[in-house]
């Protein structure tokens, strides 16, 4: 599929339980982040947080298609990606609140969620840096013959930084099993990507520079994402080399923290709210005969999970001050002298 084509046409038949799993994933992500947003305004989430509200279909479609030992690399906008690989929701929420029971013991915070045990290999807060790192993990997979695939998510803005270019070229030359996924939500922080990018599709229109096909995808269609992801993972796993996918999507809210996102035209926001991936998928599921109660139950379960996670976080202890100086080194400490 080349730039301009719509990947949803490729949707293969997806088993119902996979569909329901993805529905649950999207709801988990949505409700988790809506709660995080609330907690930010309560002053409980310190520092910053970058929500992916509206972008859940990309994370869900990929996570559902990945093998359990595949590796995810994401950005500061990484709550959803980390959660949907299977990280513990309570530990994630606790991390946002800077608690000792957080997934990184409070050392990482919202921008650095990581759960290596489920293949969530880190959230990277400097734009573009994780692309070569993901390629490196794929190189190790190739060298060791593990059959793992690295999947690396990044924004449209990341396509203009040097590391993007270096990673794509290396991955292509070494035929590495890595899938590069650009979540094009049309904006950097506040600047429209079109204002600072030489091509209309910032990722897909550059695929040719690395001998790759440019794949464009409706990132709000979770089934399309799942199908494209499945194909890309298979391709990479089979030794076909990297893939570059541009998923068109939109964040419902601002870039981070309290940003209201007012730099975006109202009509544009409305148009994308109308394309919210969750109700759209629900409608499709219902049309396909899934009972509303089934979906309501899933929603209620997600809600309960988020409430429970919130409780775990709120009641979590603050980090032990003794942990301030641990885990700089592999010996567990931080000593640089004798």
């Amino acid at each position, binding site marked *: 599929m080349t730039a301009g084509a719509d990947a949803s046409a490729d949707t293969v038949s997806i088993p119902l339980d996979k569909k329901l799993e993805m529905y649950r994933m999207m709801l988990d992500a949505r409700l988790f982040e809506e709660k995080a947003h609330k907690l930010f305004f309560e002053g409980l989430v*310190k*520092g*910053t947080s970058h929500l992916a509200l509206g972008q859940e279909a990309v994370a869900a479609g990929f996570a559902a298609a990945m093998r359990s030992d595949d590796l995810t690399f994401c950005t500061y906008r990484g709550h959803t990606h980390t959660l949907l690989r299977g990280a513990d929701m309570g530990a994630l929420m606790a991390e946002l609140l*800077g*608690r000792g029971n*957080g997934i*990184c013991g*409070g*050392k*990482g*915070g*919202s*921008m*650095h969620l990581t759960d290596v045990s489920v293949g969530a290999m880190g959230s*990277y*807060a*400097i*734009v*573009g*840096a994780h692309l070569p790192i993901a390629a490196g993990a794929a190189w190790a997979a190739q060298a060791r013959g593990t059959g793992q695939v690295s999947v690396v998510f990044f924004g449209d*803005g*990341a396509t*203009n*930084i*040097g*590391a993007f270019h270096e990673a794509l070229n290396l991955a292509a030359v070494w035929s590495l099993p890595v899938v590069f996924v650009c979540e094009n939500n049309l904006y*950097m*922080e*506040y*600047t429209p990507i079109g*204002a*600072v*990018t030489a091509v209309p599709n910032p990722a897909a229109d550059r695929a040719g520079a690395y001998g790759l096909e440019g794949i464009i995808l409706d990132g709000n269609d979770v089934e399309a994402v799942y199908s494209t992801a499945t194909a890309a993972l298979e391709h990479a796993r089979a030794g076909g080399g990297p893939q570059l996918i541009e998923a068109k999507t939109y964040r419902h809210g601002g870039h981070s923290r309290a940003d209201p996102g007012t*730099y975006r035209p109202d009509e544009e926001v409305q148009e994308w709210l109308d394309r919210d991936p969750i109700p759209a998928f629900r409608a499709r599921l219902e049309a396909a005969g899934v009972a509303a109660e089934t979906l309501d139950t899933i929603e209620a379960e997600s809600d309960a999970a988020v409430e429970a996670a919130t409780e775990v976080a709120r009641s979590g202890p*603050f*980090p032990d*001050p003794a*942990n*301030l*100086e641990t885990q*700089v080194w592999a010996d567990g400490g*931080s000593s*640089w002298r004798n």
Partner: protein
Amino acid sequence: MAELTYRQAVARGIAQEMDRDPTVYFIGEDVAAAGGVFKTTEGLQDRFGPERVRDTPISEEAITGAVMGAAMNGLRPIAEIMFSDFFATCWDIVANQIAKARYMTDGQITLPLVIRAANGGGARFGAQHSQAMENWAMAIPGLKVVAPSNAHDVVGLLAASVRDDDPVVFLEQKSLYASRQEVPEGEIVGELGKAAVVREGADITVVALAAMVPRALEAAETLAGEGIDVEVVDLRSLVPLDVTTVLNSVVKTSRMVTVEENPRLCGWGAEVTSIVTEEAFYDLDAPTLRITTPHIPLPSADTLEDLAMPSAETIASELRRVGNG
């Protein structure tokens, strides 16, 4: 005389210079239409137009390369690197190209440019958005390094930096952005390389920079109540470094403590300490002391971050150790 935040002082300083000199241009990520992620540059694009105040792609090498090339060819550009941590993504341009061009060409190339960035911790942003990296820049010959501690100095030192014919790394301490100060109307132009004795004292010299200055002052007040009279020196710029003011103070007090936000190793505190040990050894009545963040990446959790960075309390308790004997 209006109250100005440190944040507002940035825009005021830039505007003062853009008004004065049509060759001053300003570029960076999200700085123009949106006024900057820290709201430090609001209104500049409206006032000076989209040619002179421009948004860039997320391309730090292109941004710093652009101001370098532009400075070679008739502009006096200012670039913003959003968080000083991101200097790492363009360190080649800054440390290997900008810093060295004049020397390598024996003076053929002059680079009157300023690169501003939000520096330091305290905002719970985690290890990749919180570094105090003034020591990275200080270690590179050819870079001037400025880090104001208050709104008045932001305006004055920014103006001095823009007018300076050499490349200046201008570090705004992000935990100070909300701090306020009375700042007079009218043009303000400071001077690079002049430290300020912001509190006179007889017993201990405390040398501090940026966010550590108000904390050192607070610690000094605490100790005043305990009969220890602390002198606080605000370095304001690291390059050029006002060694004279530091030495004069040490000669007076015979004791010196440096307070820096940097992780432990190779910070400016070590440099100042070494200079003093070499040049005022016989004036010292007690070992020097460096207060720093431990040699760790900065943690995100508020409680841990507060523990990591030198606070007024830890400064005070360290000063007590040095005593006034």
